[in-house]
């Protein structure tokens, strides 16, 4: 069984606040799910992981597709904004 501390550590990395009850349930659920993943240990070794399958390449030019036309709408969707900028709490 995955420990309470481990769940809390992962939750912190994932920026998730979990209640005491959620941590307990997560210990149980994650343990069952991770146990199931052990199945892969039996899978044969494969060739190295390649970036794109040779048969199905999908290369493109390195160009910027602008979404400038919807900039104002995107900012309007943010919960807190000022003068066309999204407001974030001070971090320093």
């Amino acid at each position, binding site marked *: 069984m995955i420990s309470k501390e481990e769940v809390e550590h992962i939750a912190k990395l*994932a*920026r*998730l606040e979990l209640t005491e009850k959620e941590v307990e349930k997560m210990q149980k659920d994650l343990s069952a799910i991770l146990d199931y993943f052990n199945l*892969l240990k039996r899978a044969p070794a494969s060739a190295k*992981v390649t970036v794109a399958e040779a048969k199905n390449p*999908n290369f493109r030019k390195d160009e910027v597709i602008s979404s400038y036309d919807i900039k104002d709408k995107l900012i309007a969707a943010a*919960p*807190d904004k000022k003068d066309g900028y999204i407001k974030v709490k001070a971090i320093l």
Partner: protein
Amino acid sequence: MDLTELTIKQAHEGLKNKEFTSVDLVKAYLDNIKKNNGELNAFLSVTEELALEMAEEADRKIATGNFGMLCGIPCAIKDAILVEGQKCTAASKILENYTAPYDATVIKKLKAEGAVILGKTNTDEFTMGASTENSAFGPTKNPNDKTRVAGGSSGGSAAAVSANMACYSLGSDTGGSIRQPASFCGVVGLCPTYGAVSRYGLIPHASSFDQIGPFAKNVEDAETVFNAICGKDPKDATSADYKLEDSGIKLKGLRIGVPKEYFAKGLNKEVEKIIRGAIKKAEDAGAEIVEISLPTTEYALACYYILVPSEASANLARFDGIRYGLSKQDGNLLSVYLKSRGEGFGDEPKRRIMTGTYCLSSGYYDAYYKKAQEVRQLIGQDFTEAFEKVDVLFCPVSPFPAFKIGEKADDPLSMYLSDIYTVALKIAGLPGLSLPAGKIGNLPVGLQIIGNHFQENKILSVAEQIE
């Protein structure tokens, strides 16, 4: 005549012959929604005003005599696909009050065709689930048996078509989310090849898996919708230059592969009987049935449930209380993140974020994520070899028909295991279709037809011939 029973083609003919207008169609569907949605919960929001506006515009276009198949035909859209100016919640509390700032590319394409949008349909939260029970706004009930689930994640879109609350609908499929609810509700559902349809404006779940596809009353309608939404989009780099062309194939002489691993232990006997029956029907029509093996099948679920949550944990990082939706502003920046996400996400997204973060974290990455990527290649190779021998594959969509609401809700692993026949082809980026093949009592059972990359034309043609 009940207008809501018409297929796209029949409704199109009626519009052409001036038997009724698009506004008539919309009103008939809105009536059905008002009557049935309270109980079924297929729609999260009904866009009545927009629908009537679009119908009036479609009627003006129809009056000119120059209009396409989808013009004036009412449809429903999964609530994970953006429709400008309408709410888009992904069935999550974190987006409960979020309004879409732009149209998804598929919506732009449908609008250009003159389509009419009736509303946004229910889904598992962030499309994570196989029953729509993970929706923050309650499950969708199966129109064929209201004590059972409609399937998921696109359960609302499937139920809407099945209960004549939309002529067709759009859903999205990451690991079975179109085919499984189509199977449970008894409609046609197509998950296209990875890259066939633009995902711009689809709230992402796992970006190397997600695809948008149609639900329809028959194969011909599914083809019409797919044809309207597929193709290259500069706003989705993974989209491919793709045109649907008639395959011209006939069942006679067609080689149909039947993967033996998909008929192993765990498959409901009645489901097996129906699927074997469909295979027999194809054989009687002259197809050659070839038993094949996909030896990596047993690893597909574990591979899928490592890769998909890993990608999801990164994709859902954008919901931080700063950019969209729910925001808990107490305390410092870290506390905005923690509290907004802690309060906004439901159990399943939390579970997947945790699983994904775990699999990607230092010390576990090699054992889980990297290993799963290697297995992904093996699974792809299995299918590549299979399609050297056969044209399409036939197998079940789900090991059982629609299950009872609540039956699997408290056991996430058993819910994951229900995806056993739908995830492997997604790992390989292949297209698949669910075709109604029979019923167990009231409960529909779908046959899954899998094709090689970008061979939707073959799948659709085969499906139409045995429909």
